[in-house]
């Protein structure tokens, strides 16, 4: 038995045989061809190269048009790599002389180049290995060598072990068979983590190098509560984990009974408890757990989970589905939050030394109206099917808010002129996640219908910590007193102006912190569907006085650690059922 420590990112326990993916998620076997087929095979490679070249060229033109020639040049370099005479000499030799199948030749030759690049000491040059791998993948795909989803043909339950999983790869996992996953790299609060939580898959990331020592088929345990990967567990460990799975199933069954009861405190203060979703199909688990609405619909996953850029119709269909299925309950759509660690299909900023301080989110949308406009049109159109509200992320200056609102008006006028059914009068809100917005909130609040605090980004920008950086991730705590003071201020301003205020960050899904938020005066919480029952249970177990006492005490403390210790202590007294042993 070997026990490895990583970062827990999605709770729960998964036990099963390991499925180990190699670094790039696919494997090409050594295939040779008959000598008389060599010319044909080489022609097959050539037409794949031409097809990929066309794709890269159209990427280049599109990107250059939107983001300038400098950015488009990324693809110019990729095209140059694809057309490299040395590369073609080598591919030709392998196919025509050594009789390698085209996909095997591509795999070997490009992988060797990628390895050579990764070995370079210059980090920036080493990163070009990504371009080589990208070309390799595109060629292999064109040659039909592997499915886009290497995990699409599973027939048995597995626990996935991989070097890394992107948010879109995670989103495409077959949940009938994948029980949980564990990766070598990654940090807490990354978007893979958010997707894993959305899919309710136990997950541990950032374990460090271990793949080489675990053969596929070995029994493993992923402990998503404590961040552990246990390889080949002994009998007693296995038994105790199996017991934990049973206990948590019992608790889940108990919590399910809360479904039709309102989220209100023991003395009758009603809290609106909504859900954060990424995918339309998640409305099912929202309804199953009695959510009051969707408090945060993260639309960028339309981009990340598909291979093509979504059209206005794609947006419209997804939003219409969500709002129809939520059947009268409000749905708050957050506009594109791309950039930083979430990129779409086109790289929109070539090199940002500080992507979290760079062209992301609303800033990116306002600079790329061809991305933003279809989304806004789709939102207004889908609003004819139910209670849709729109919310702009990462608002930092009043100018950005006004610009976004203006664009919404322009789009509404266009729809009217075109005679397309829509609603122009939907509520407009902003996310409060930059300290500057908190400081200036009196000015923002007048121009919006509601506010929603994104505690993940607010904590990251307040504490100057990149939450996906494993070296400093421990400094990142939404319970830090500095963050709490900003939240307290938001509540005061929102109350003064009688604007609804929600908290939709991760913070509200941790029971102790949720009670603290209620004590601070927050009356709208939005949490991942998986957390709905727990948070409802916590709210229903306390009185509003008890929450206020918690808040009063917490606001005298001076460190996140003290806050968490105190909250855990209160929770163990007030809602002992929720304490994970």
């Amino acid at each position: 038995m070997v026990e490895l420590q990583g970062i827990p990112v999605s709770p729960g326990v998964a036990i099963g045989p390991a499925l180990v993916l190699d670094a790039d998620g696919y494997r090409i076997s050594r295939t040779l061809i008959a000598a008389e087929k060599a010319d044909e095979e080489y022609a097959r490679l050539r037409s794949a190269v031409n097809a990929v070249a066309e794709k890269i060229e159209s990427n280049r033109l599109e990107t250059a048009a939107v983001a300038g020639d400098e950015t488009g040049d990324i693809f110019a370099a990729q095209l140059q790599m694809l057309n490299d005479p040395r590369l073609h000499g080598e591919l030709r030799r392998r196919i025509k002389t050594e009789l390698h199948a085209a996909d095997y030749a591509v795999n070997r030759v490009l992988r060797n180049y990628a390895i050579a690049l990764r070995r370079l000491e210059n980090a920036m040059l080493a990163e070009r290995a990504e371009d080589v791998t990208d070309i390799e993948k595109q060629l292999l795909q064109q040659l039909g060598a592997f499915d886009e989803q290497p995990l699409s043909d599973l027939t048995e339950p597995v626990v996935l072990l991989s070097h890394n999983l992107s948010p879109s790869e995670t989103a495409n996992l077959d949940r009938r068979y994948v029980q949980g996953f564990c990766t070598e790299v990654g940090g807490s609060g990354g978007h893979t983590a958010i997707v894993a939580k959305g899919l309710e898959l136990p997950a541990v990331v950032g374990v460090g190098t271990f793949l080489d020592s675990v053969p596929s088929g070995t029994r493993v345990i992923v402990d998503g509560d404590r961040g552990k990967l246990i390889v080949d567990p002994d009998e007693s460990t296995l038994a105790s984990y199996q017991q934990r799975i049973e206990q948590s199933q019992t608790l889940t069954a108990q919590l399910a009974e809360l479904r039709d009861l309102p989220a209100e405190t023991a003395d009758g203060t009603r809290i609106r408890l909504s859900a954060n979703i990424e995918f339309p199909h998640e409305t099912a688990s929202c309804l199953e757990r009695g959510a009051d609405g969707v408090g945060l619909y993260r639309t960028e996953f339309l981009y990340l989970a598909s291979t093509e850029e979504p059209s206005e119709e794609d947006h419209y269909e997804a939003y219409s589905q969500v709002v129809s299925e939520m059947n009268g309950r409000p749905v708050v759509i957050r506009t594109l939050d791309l950039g930083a660690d979430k990129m779409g299909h086109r790289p929109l900023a070539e090199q940002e030394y500080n992507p979290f301080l760079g062209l992301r989110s609303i800033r990116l949308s306002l600079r790329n109206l061809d991305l933003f406009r279809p989304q806004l049109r789709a939102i207004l159109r889908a609003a004819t099917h139910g209670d849709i509200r729109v919310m702009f992320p990462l608002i930092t200056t009043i100018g950005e808010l006004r610009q976004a609102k203006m664009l919404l008006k322009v789009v509404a006028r266009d729809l009217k002129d075109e005679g397309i059914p829509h609603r122009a009068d939907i509520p407009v809100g902003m996310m409060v996640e930059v300290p500057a917005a908190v400081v200036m909130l009196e000015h923002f609040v007048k121009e919006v219908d509601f506010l929603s605090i994104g505690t993940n980004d607010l904590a990251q920008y307040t504490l100057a910590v990149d939450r996906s950086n494993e070296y400093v991730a421990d400094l990142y705590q939404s319970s830090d007193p500095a963050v709490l003071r900003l939240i307290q201020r938001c509540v005061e301003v929102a109350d003064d102006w009688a604007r609804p205020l929600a908290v939709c960050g991760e913070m509200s899904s941790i029971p102790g912190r949720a009670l603290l938020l209620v004590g601070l005066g927050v009356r709208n919480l939005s949490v991942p569907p998986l957390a709905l029952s727990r948070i409802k249970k916590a709210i229903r177990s306390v009185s509003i006085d008890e929450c206020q006492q918690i808040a009063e005490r917490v606001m005298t403390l001076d460190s996140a650690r003290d806050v968490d210790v105190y909250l855990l202590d209160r929770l163990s007294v007030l809602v002992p059922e929720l304490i994970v042993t």
Partner: protein
Amino acid sequence: MNKNLPTRTVTVRNPQGLHARPADLLVRMASSYQSSISIGRDGELVDCKSILSLLTLGAAQGTVLTVSADGSDADDALKAITELFEAGFDDTNEVPGKQPAVDG
């Protein structure tokens, strides 16, 4: 290698080294000449018309490279390449020559 080939010495000046964009420009420049052109250091010479080979040189800022050319337009090619390095690849938006045709 023929010792009599015209040869020049160039220095990588741009701060990020010979990364993707400069390498792309260099290949386009080299490919517009008929001569075969080699570039490298410490006896490790690679094809100047191959971007993958150029990148694997891992030439950071300050690296001194030797360029040699073999062919009818060798002197012109060396002159143009030397200028490209001296300009630090930054002011050269206009590069003669088109994308090289796919090998076939």
